[in-house]
């Protein structure tokens, strides 16, 4: 299990480079190797790259890529995608054969491929006076849609009574269908794409392929018509965030008061007294009897007392101003709330910005 995952990671890293070089042949060969190693997911990734419009693949290479992609999808138990791929291959080359590849998918390959061949042949041989089934597609050349309820009208008109199947996929990955719908045979009007993928999320801006195929009641299938549309978000009017609060906006939260705390004097005088009376308070009378006071103790006592007085008169203390602190906190809270509201509104404006849809090659 780990080896296929590792191989897939390596291939995902290499695939863009190979595609950028236009080496579709190398991509197809690498995909074939992955199929031989029973790694259908890795093969599919490589083949999707080979089938992008800018891969430089020749018609023969595209036929080969569609066939291998169909085999990979069969291996992954995705028969619908497999048949679509086979159909694309047969539309490009109705004489294509897959007998030599049967060993890759011995259970279903020939059956599914030949079923698609029969359908394509039936189209070619349809008894309609020699008229082949075709479909015409109409899309607005340039329109803007709301993201909430906007729908892109896609009009499909078969050349005779037939149902029209419309699919939308990324232009560089036409096999990754995002949305599909069917206009019943005899139906009129347009199908509407809500610009969302199957899971309901809005598709990101980019190039998308609209693929339209008609199929009549006897299974005749038209050639798939592809139109490329470009989706982009319309510019929105957002609010600029407010300027940061200036320091002058805030009231001082503390007040500097001249003179230190009275406790400085208390501590200074108290410690001075303690130093002066330490010998008599702690000493034994037998050892202090007949002695005058200890001069060194008085010297230290005076020093400590003077230090306390200096600390009080030369010092300062800071008195907190809780009202101003509360007011400043409220100012910060309001500013944060205001910024959050603007950010939310801007995000919502961007999310709900209309989507511009332009038909590539559809003129101004």
């Amino acid at each position: 299990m780990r080896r296929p995952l590792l191989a897939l990671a390596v291939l995902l890293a290499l695939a863009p480079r190979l595609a950028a070089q236009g080496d579709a042949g190398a991509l197809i060969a690498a995909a074939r190797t992955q199929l031989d190693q029973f790694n259908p997911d890795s093969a599919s990734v490589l083949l999707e790259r080979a089938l992008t419009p800018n891969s430089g693949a020749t018609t023969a290479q595209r036929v080969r890529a569609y066939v291998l992609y169909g085999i990979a999808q069969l291996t992954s138990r995705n028969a619908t995608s497999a048949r679509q791929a086979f159909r694309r291959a047969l539309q490009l080359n109705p004489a294509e054969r897959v007998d030599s590849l049967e060993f890759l998918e011995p259970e279903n390959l020939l059956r599914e491929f030949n079923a698609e061949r029969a359908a394509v042949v039936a189209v070619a041989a349809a008894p309609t006076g020699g008229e082949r089934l075709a479909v015409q597609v109409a899309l607005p050349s340039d329109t803007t849609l709301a993201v909430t309820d906007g729908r892109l009208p896609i009009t499909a008109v078969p050349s005779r009574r037939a149902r029209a199947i419309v699919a939308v996929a990324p232009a560089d990955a036409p096999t990754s269908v995002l949305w599909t719908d069917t206009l019943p045979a005899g139906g009129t009007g347009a199908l509407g794409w809500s610009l969302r993928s199957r899971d309901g999320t809005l598709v990101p801006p980019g190039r998308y392929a609209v693929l339209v195929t008609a199929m009549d009641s006897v299974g005749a299938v038209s050639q798939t018509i592809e139109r490329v549309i470009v989706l982009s978000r319309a510019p929105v009017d957002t609010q600029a965030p407010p300027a940061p609060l200036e320091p002058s906006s805030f009231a001082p939260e503390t007040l500097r008061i001249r003179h230190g705390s009275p406790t400085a004097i208390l501590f200074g005088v108290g410690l001075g007294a303690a130093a002066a009376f330490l010998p008599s308070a702690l000493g034994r009378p037998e050892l202090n009897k007949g002695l005058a006071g200890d001069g060194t103790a008085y010297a230290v006592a005076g020093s400590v007392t003077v230090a306390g007085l200096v600390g009080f008169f030369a010092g300062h203390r800071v008195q907190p101003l809780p009202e101003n602190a509360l007011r400043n906190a409220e100012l910060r809270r309001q500013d944060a709330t205001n910024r959050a509201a603007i950010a939310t509104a801007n995000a919502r404006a961007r999310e709900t910005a209309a989507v511009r849809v332009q038909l590539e090659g559809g003129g101004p």
Partner: protein
Amino acid sequence: MRHRLLVALALGTLPLPAAAQALSGGAAGFNVQRRVFYQGAVYQQTGVWYGAAAAARLGPVRLGLSGLFGSLGGGGAQSPDVTIRATTVTLHLAVAPWMLVGAQAEARRFEADAGVTSWRLIGANVRAEPGLGLPGLTGLADVSVLPASSVSGGPSLKMAVQATVGVGFAPAGSHLAFRLGYRFERYDISASGASPERYEQFRGIVVEAGVRLGR
């Protein structure tokens, strides 16, 4: 060897944990007067002790080590000259930014011509350094009560108390720190055999200068 250790501590060259939030160290001088009451007479000696101290603080815990050495003399024939060495270890817990509470253990060695006497002084210590209104200016009150004290191989100490009161100053923007204090020690030694009780006290000015690193 012990002197080298003290010098190393004073210079701050000992390897200490890098996680410590503060390191401090310095040198000290103690101008001592010793008075002894024995058999009804009072004997007095004087001298100067020198030493060093170092401390490391990690969070609320502070570990300190200090040493003093010096001599006492001038007591006459009844009180022979002695050489003194004292080594002290303290372990403190900060209960407030300016107050430490902890334990202290000290070994004090008196060496005279007649022999060597050692004291073991063990007990509790409280150290307060309240601010005095200016940055770096603090008071100092350091009191140790050492009830688990005794003379090595001799009697116990009925009372052992040490107290230092003073003022400290650490100039703003500098790592230097200075301290001036008055130190007083009292020891009441129990009677032992034919020897009656003996009382001793040490007192004098303590001056310290050092460096402090960290917060």
